[in-house]
């Protein structure tokens, strides 16, 4: 059953088509990545789903209900951690729930502990490293009650090593929770490692250019990154991306 269904949406900024006739389905418990070049309209798509922007055409349906220009229907993790500096880790993690009604402190503490941040539960964000802040931001999104989580390039500001760490961490947390996730990234390897399905976005205007179902079994381990299968997939998608970029330019 599809949790999120984006039907034929278009968006213009000052007469420039940024998104045109875009269709996308995300199924229950699925991890879908959107891969697209910078400026292709990925964040704009998220703003549309999040209800901050209204599409010029088309409908966005979440669990059978139309959510065009309705904020708060989805859970969101932005590129910068966006933690409130006057709140402790625990209070920050509870923010998503707080905005929607009920707070579950014991569940939050449990998640913080699982994330390896137990000793930081009562620290303020300025006392954390960049990677730790992103973990907190992800837990906040995970604890929010909405049926789908949008992640907008959450690791792009981190260095390569921390990034791999975070990918492994996210994967382990996610494989135990199986929330429905829509994930934006620039990074092909990251998308392959994490997703059930990869959607490639074309540039200007954005539509779905290609789609790949990734067959690797879960739980996935770091070693997967070096297996032949993985590298073959990487090559395959890379060539498609390349030929497709050449076509469009």
């Amino acid at each position: 059953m599809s949790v999120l269904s984006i039907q034929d949406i278009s968006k213009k900024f000052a007469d420039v088509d940024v998104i045109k006739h875009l269709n996308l389905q995300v199924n229950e418990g699925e991890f879908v990545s959107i891969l697209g070049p910078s400026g292709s309209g990925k964040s704009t798509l998220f703003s549309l789903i999040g209800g901050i922007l209204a599409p010029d055409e088309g409908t966005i349906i979440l669990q059978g209900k139309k959510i065009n220009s309705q904020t708060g229907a989805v859970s969101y993790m932005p590129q910068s951690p966006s933690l409130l500096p006057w709140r402790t880790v625990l209070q920050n993690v509870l923010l998503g729930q707080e905005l929607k009604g009920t707070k579950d402190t014991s569940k939050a503490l449990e998640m913080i502990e699982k994330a390896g941040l137990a000793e930081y539960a009562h620290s303020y964000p300025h006392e954390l490293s960049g990677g730790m802040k992103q973990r907190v931001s992800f837990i906040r999104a995970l604890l929010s009650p909405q049926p789908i989580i949008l992640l907008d390039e959450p690791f792009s500001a981190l260095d390569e090593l921390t990034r791999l760490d975070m990918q492994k961490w996210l994967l382990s947390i996610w494989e135990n929770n199986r929330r429905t996730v829509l994930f934006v990234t620039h990074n092909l390897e990251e998308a392959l490692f994490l997703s059930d399905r990869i959607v490639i976005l074309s540039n200007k205007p954005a539509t779905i250019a290609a789609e790949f179902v990734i067959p690797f079994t879960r739980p996935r381990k770091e070693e997967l990154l070096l297996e032949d299968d993985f590298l073959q997939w990487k090559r395959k998608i890379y060539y498609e991306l390349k030929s497709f970029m050449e076509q469009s330019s």
Partner: protein
Amino acid sequence: MKKNRFKGWRSVIVLLLFFFIWELAVKIADIPEWLLPAPSTIMTEAITGFPSFSEHLLSTIKLGITGFALGVGFGLFVAVLLYLLPFVREAIYPFLILSQNIPVIVLAPLLVIWFGFGILPKMIVITLVCFFPVTIAALDGFKQTSPDLRHYMKMAGATKSQLFWKLELPHALPSIFSGLKISATYSIMGAVISEWLGAKSGIGVYMTLASSSFRTDRVFVAIFAIMALSLIFFAAIVLIERLLIRWQSKGVD
């Protein structure tokens, strides 16, 4: 920290030097006491006259704190109103600035004519000098809310009031405190001026009596008392700020 303390010591030394030169100048030039008393004379008067002065001191403190609270309340109210209603802001903002150009000394007698000698005209005077820094600082603080945080809050479904209470207000707190510090120092001055409108006690009253009877030493006692009170007020606000804003040791992220 160490450096700060050292700087503090330097200003104390400068102050002591200043008093020393003053004392010396008065003694050497043999200046009459009613014209310019020596620091030692002022000190003696401050100590011996304290029992009768303390009553005035207390009533000024009370007046200052009440007026300060009222002024800050009014200032925050105006700031929130102007922030939430942009069209009101455009209409009212110029008048806010103009309100600061009214000479209080001229306004004061008028207030007495309109409202009598009660507490009301005094509160108006103190509010008038206190509210402005808070209003401007709070408006600035609201405006500077981080766009990233605002974006997140909106995506997460924050309502307008949640946005204000959970993001904009706490975000503006450091800025509001810099307004409060200015207002706190103004409030004592405001209280003293308002006491000139007619009061039974207060530093303002004490000062008027002293200057009309050429007790210049007492005038100086009053001046130093006002300065000390302003400083203590300021320090109290700084202390509250430290206790309340423990999260801000680096920039906002």
